[in-house]
């Protein structure tokens, strides 16, 4: 809390002198108002004080992330205890990270959309369409004749275009995000099936696979790409006007609009952003599996939304955390890995995942009502 007691110089130019409204009120009266306000504030604080120190800590951003890290560590301990060598081996850690990278990049984009008050159910389908479009014979021919960057360009453009369609119809067409992206989910995957004729498309562009799969400091390029996207996402959300606008648009779109923010344009940009993230994720998946397929990314929307929500981003918008999302993704990926290593069924995983999501949201709501400032 800053308590700078420096006398105020010019606020807003020439207004300084007159802004001193002291003369209109006596000192005693000020004192009274101050007391009254302090009291109101203290009541507020006191209410918050009823929560235990732990929930208070969990209420702060730092504390929430700490809680998530602890959950992740416990999960790793369980993994090491039950699967031993197989869990802690370098190979396994690399597997976890490269799986996390794909879904992670999608989740970073999703964090922005959800923070901005929207939702995108079509991420998996957009990913599939991007993967198919960038691996068609035509694209691959182009890549072989020219440069493999052509595939990258196609994937990113397809993702951005799908996001643009989502965004325009949501912002200017007035379609509810849930319905619009549900429609995109169906259409994009349908288009992917038409283009690929429901066949898996093998990639044999030499430069592309080498580039994405080469290892730097023991980790594949895809993992580093995820790290890069996460850092860029954090900076974008927390340090730029774009991020500030995202929080404003998600927190109270009407207030944001009346403050002069172009809410519609910003909404479009958010969906384009998540589309581009899907394009990047598609490239990572294509490189890892060396295929493009209309079945890629199935149910990614659920994993991404789940990771974002357990990470601490408010589903209602207005508050988002990239760090939380990254840890959320790692938790889910590690969980899957531990289950797989212990030969437990996919069904059991799904059951537990569902329970975790419910628990996380319950916890979030409790914290939100405790820290509520909007009584």
């Amino acid at each position, binding site marked *: 809390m800053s308590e700078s007691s420096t006398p105020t110089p010019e606020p807003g130019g020439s207004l300084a002198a007159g802004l001193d409204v002291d003369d209109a009120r006596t000192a005693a009266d000020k004192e009274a108002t101050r007391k009254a306000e302090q009291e109101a504030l203290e009541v507020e604080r006191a209410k918050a004080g009823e929560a235990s120190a732990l929930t208070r800590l969990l209420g702060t951003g730092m504390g929430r992330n700490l809680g998530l890290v602890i959950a992740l560590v416990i999960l790793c301990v369980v993994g090491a205890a039950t699967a031993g060598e197989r869990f802690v081996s370098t190979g396994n850690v690399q597997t976890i990270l490269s799986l996390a990278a794909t879904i992670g990049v999608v989740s970073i984009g999703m964090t922005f959309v959800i923070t901005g008050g929207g939702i995108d159910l079509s991420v998996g389908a957009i990913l599939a369409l991007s993967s198919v479009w960038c691996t068609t014979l035509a694209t691959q021919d182009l890549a072989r004749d020219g440069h493999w960057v052509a595939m990258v360009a196609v994937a990113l453009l397809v993702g951005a275009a799908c996001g643009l369609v989502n965004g325009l119809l949501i912002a200017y067409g007035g379609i509810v995000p849930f319905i619009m992206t549900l429609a995109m989910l169906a259409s994009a995957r349908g288009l992917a099936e038409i283009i690929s004729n429901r066949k898996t498309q093998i990639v044999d562009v030499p430069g592309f696979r080498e580039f994405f799969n080469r290892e730097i400091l023991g980790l594949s390029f895809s993992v580093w790409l995820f790290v890069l996207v996460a850092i860029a996402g954090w900076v974008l959300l927390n340090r730029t006007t774009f991020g500030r606008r995202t929080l404003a648009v998600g927190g109270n779109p009407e207030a944001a609009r009346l403050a002069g923010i172009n809410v519609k344009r910003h909404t479009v940009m958010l969906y384009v952003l998540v589309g581009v993230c899907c394009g990047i994720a598609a490239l990572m998946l294509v490189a890892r599996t060396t295929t493009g397929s209309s079945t890629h990314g199935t149910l990614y929307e659920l994993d991404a939304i789940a990771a974002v929500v357990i990470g601490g981003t408010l589903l209602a918008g*207005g508050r988002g955390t990239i760090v939380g999302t990254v840890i959320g993704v790692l938790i889910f990926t590690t969980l899957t890995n531990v289950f797989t290593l212990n030969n437990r069924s996919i069904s059991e995983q799904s059951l537990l995942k569902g329970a975790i999501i419910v628990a996380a949201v319950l916890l979030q709501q409790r914290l939100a009502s405790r820290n509520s400032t909007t009584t």
Partner: protein
Amino acid sequence: MTPQNTAPSAAPGEVLLQMSGIVKEFPGVRALGGVDLDVRAGEVHCLLGQNGAGKSTLIKVLAAAYQPDEGTITWNGQEVSFGSPLQAINAGVATIYQELDLVPDLSVAENVFLGHEMSRGGFSQRARANKVTRELLTRLGHPEISPSRAVGDLSPANQQIVSMARALSHDTKLLILDEPSAVLDQEGVKNLFRVIRGLTAEGVAIVYISHRLEEIREIGDRITVLKDGSTVATGLAVADTPTSRLIELMTGRAIEYVFPPRPEFDPARNDVVLEVRDLALEGVFSGVDMTVHAGEIVGLTGLVGAGRSEILETLYGARRASNGTVTVDGKPLRRGSVTNAVKAGVGLCPEERKSQGLLLDQAVYTNITISSMNRFARLGFLDRGEERARAEQLTTSLDVRPTGVVRAVGTLSGGNQQKVVLARWLLRECRVLLLDEPTRGVDVGARTEIYQLIRTLADSGVAVVVVSSEVEEVLGLSDRVLVVREGRVVHESAATEIDESQVLDLVMEGSAA
């Protein structure tokens, strides 16, 4: 101790409720430190106090939403302790909070009987519920409201009547009204008073909370004044207590000049900043012309629903005008584009501060810098230190309390929130400032500051347009006044050339038909 009020009732003037020595502590703070209140059957007992004086806490204790830590409550001669709001309701205490808790999609009758539906064998008895509702509405003087209409279609004033009908559907002996006139216009307030008089005549006691002293003067019998969580005066007879004494009790001082002095204003010497020509919004208002000079405050007044707020919102671009032009410093604004208006130097402090003005969960400083963000950004990257420093300067000079720009703006009181919205436009250095009900929900002390601030802004060359339901405020603050009735400007003159009753005449004319 016999009351002057001799309304015919079962037991007029008998003490219905006696609260003594009520203490309510939240960990670390004493919200109520020994409050006494006695309410008699058939009286209107007014509760006065600044924001944070403890009025809300007291009525929550009374409604059993909070349990008191100390003190006794005597109800109908018996010492009681209501364990839950439901017990209080069953005993006959009904509360109508500021935010009405009605379900907009349900019918009037369904809302009235929400929670205690009339049914037999699990089937609802719609006809009987409608009949009883109609009786209740008639008792409240509003037989024209249909019990089967959806509540969401009713005006705010009528919704309040439905809320009261719900209170009366229980056997209510004490009705608590928290700022009931905040959502009402002149006509609505008259109605409300008629209803209140009817209820007190039947022996119902009313606890009435309001910031508007003139209302209390009109409807109240006795007054209790709270300050800093305790009773500073109780049982004052409204008729014998001058306003200055009440303000003194509330604030510990007497106010002399509520409105800042008006400087001599000569339009010829100042440039025209805002020019509105033939502005119209389909079905709401039309043919609005307005010229505002630098340094001038123009007041817009009229009934709620006359189109005042809509005029502001339309010229700000928040609604798309169907006709007309708005120019700022000679440059025309694009229709229906807030972004364009803000770029041209127009700022709006909207009517609903909480839902339209502020990002309540976010820090004070981001709420201030939101409209001038680009000034703090290089290539899109924000300099947050600079943002905070500028916000700190502004909040200090506007005396926003408590201090500290990183706290969530939602934790501030109404007056201080309004200062934050004003600080936003101060920072923006706008040319035109539009203020919609700038002092709604703001206590007496902070009002004076806000009036002073608005005048100071005008003196610095800003063109100001103020919309207010309070005629006194418009007349006291503005240089020029426009009266709006049914979507048309029916009068324009210097503020000094017209008085309150003339404005009311203009405003009401034809509206009774």
